[in-house]
């Protein structure tokens, strides 16, 4: 099952990860003893019902949240030992985020939105704009560079968000229900864009979804149920067999 086992350092190595939230009713476990590894270049879909812990898992992968116990190594870096600033740097250089709600800054132009991670990376303004334009062109929206997000459609906004996620050439693209707010035709456009990135540039993609239809784009599907990994499988002919699903 673990076909790339011994070969190279995994991009993501998770061992005995626990996460619990403190509530008035006592500690509430969300993730229980999760261990898995993700190799560079994989396209992984994380599925599971609401409350299964898949979003918490994503947040920890994205260094937005930290585990209660256990280890999470991102490209060999033990994230539990990193400071807030180092985690910010990791999010900036290694990780690109795509959210369900697009999360563009409403008062910034599309160009400024895409260029924002470069600002925090300390890239000079001219290179920032040039690089942001390239990325906008890659998602086919360069002619709207000066628009505010509210002037374009949801699908287009998500493309801009993907451009922003890729602007620092991250190793890992994390997409949390990226098609949750889109109709099915647009959803498939977005998924083809993401799958293309994975195929052409080898960007590792971890995608959270509850739609099997969307998950079929991935080459590996991990199911969470009640905070534990319920199943972790590579569909026989990745992307083909799953077409039979509803």
């Amino acid at each position, binding site marked *: 099952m673990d076909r790339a086992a011994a070969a190279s350092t995994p991009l993501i190595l998770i061992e005995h990860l626990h996460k619990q939230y403190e509530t008035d009713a006592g500690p509430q476990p969300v993730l229980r003893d999760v261990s898995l590894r993700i190799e560079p270049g994989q396209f992984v879909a994380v599925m599971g019902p609401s409350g299964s812990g898949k979003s918490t898992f994503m*947040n920890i992968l*994205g260094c*937005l*949240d930290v585990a209660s116990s256990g280890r999470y190594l991102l490209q060999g870096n033990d994230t539990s030992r990193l400071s*807030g*600033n180092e985690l*910010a*740097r990791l*999010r*900036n*250089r290694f990780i690109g*985020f795509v959210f369900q709600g697009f*999360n*563009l*800054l409403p*008062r*910034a132009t599309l160009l400024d939105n895409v260029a*924002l*991670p470069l*600002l*925090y*990376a*300390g890239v000079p*303004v001219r290179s*920032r704009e040039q690089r942001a334009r390239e990325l906008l062109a890659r998602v086919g929206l360069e002619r709207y560079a000066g628009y505010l997000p509210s002037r374009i459609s949801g699908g287009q906004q998500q493309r801009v968000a993907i451009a*922003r*996620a890729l602007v*620092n050439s991250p190793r890992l693209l994390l997409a949390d229900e990226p098609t949750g707010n889109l109709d099915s035709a647009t959803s498939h456009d977005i998924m083809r864009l993401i799958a293309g990135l994975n195929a052409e540039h080898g960007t590792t993609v971890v995608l959270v979804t509850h739609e099997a239809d969307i998950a079929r784009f991935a080459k590996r599907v991990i199911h969470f149920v009640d905070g534990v990994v319920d199943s972790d499988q590579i569909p026989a002919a990745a992307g083909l067999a799953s077409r039979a699903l509803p």
Partner: protein
Amino acid sequence: MIAGMLREAWSAMGANRLRTFLTMLGLVIGVGAVVLMMAIGQGAQTLVREAVATMGSNLFIVLSGGTTAGGARSGSGTAPTLTLADADAIAELSSVAAVAPTQFGNAQLVYGAANWNTQVMGVTPSYLEVREWRLVAGQPFTEADLRAVARVALLGQTVVKQVFGDEDPVDKTVRIRNSPYLVLGVLAPKGQSFDGRDQDDTVLVPLTTAQRKLYGSPFPGTVRFMMVKALSEEAMSRAERAIDALLRARHRISPEGEADFTIRNLSAVADVQAQTTRVMSVMLGAVASVSLVVGGIGIMNIMLVSVTERTREIGIRMAIGARRRDILLQFLLESLIVSVIGCLIGVILGVAAALLVSRVTEMTVVVTAVAIGLAFLVAAAVGVFFGFYPARKAADLKPIEALRYQ
């Protein structure tokens, strides 16, 4: 990096113009008030300083004693207890620069068809030195004129204006109490004294001429009033003791006995007045500063609201790599920009208000660069100080909680 952040801060402020304006308003009023109040305070101080300067520095007045007629005591300067010889003796003291015995009186002055009633003072040539008074035209009179009891006069600016108009008065002859006097020179303008008199409404003639020809004196060789200039500010108290001792010795009065003269320190009187205006301007400034603090609290208030409103935006920024200090800097810059712009507007309004006040009222206002600079610094400090807490609140948000915030 900073440039990019500045642009972002600018656009964030532009997004809610009314609120940005209202936030600034507190500071605008505060800075405007400080600038205006300091201008008014400075104006009062300048007025007093100028009045004191025109009076002359390091001055004493020595008055002769009072008379007692039938049990009724007259005031100082009514008894002929001081003599010109006393004045000469005082002038010899090492701590004294000059002595000017003076005889006061009023007289009608006539030139051609014009006439004017003014103060005509009998003085010695040293009077100009004591009062630090220059001539703008002609010559001063001399000891020779004094000895010759010459009918010569120096005219103050107001007298020249009233009697000569645009005509040059030097070498013209005016009539004072119907006797002809040759005008030797014209005194420089001095303006108001610190008690509000017009110092330019005066005519100076030799003391001897005033005593013998103009007013007459029942006691020749006496004088009721003299001004004494000490060598320096430090020599003032030494000079006062020396004059007192000298006059007591000359008048044969024991150190414990009641003196038949009075010494007044004019500079001390002026100092009190200067002190009063200084205290007043400090108090005005302090009251106005309170409004700066209120303006600062306004900034903090709005910035706190802004941080809460933009929690999600902060979360997004953190998710794509903003560090703690990036967020801190962003919000600090925003409050700094608001306060600097508010301060600029405040300075402009304050200066405008100061000019308006000086135009509408007779009040003297002085806007100094120091006052403007001070207001600016305080405003910037207020912006950073009151902006820091909201900025830190923003920077301390946890990425995941900020991102989840609806």
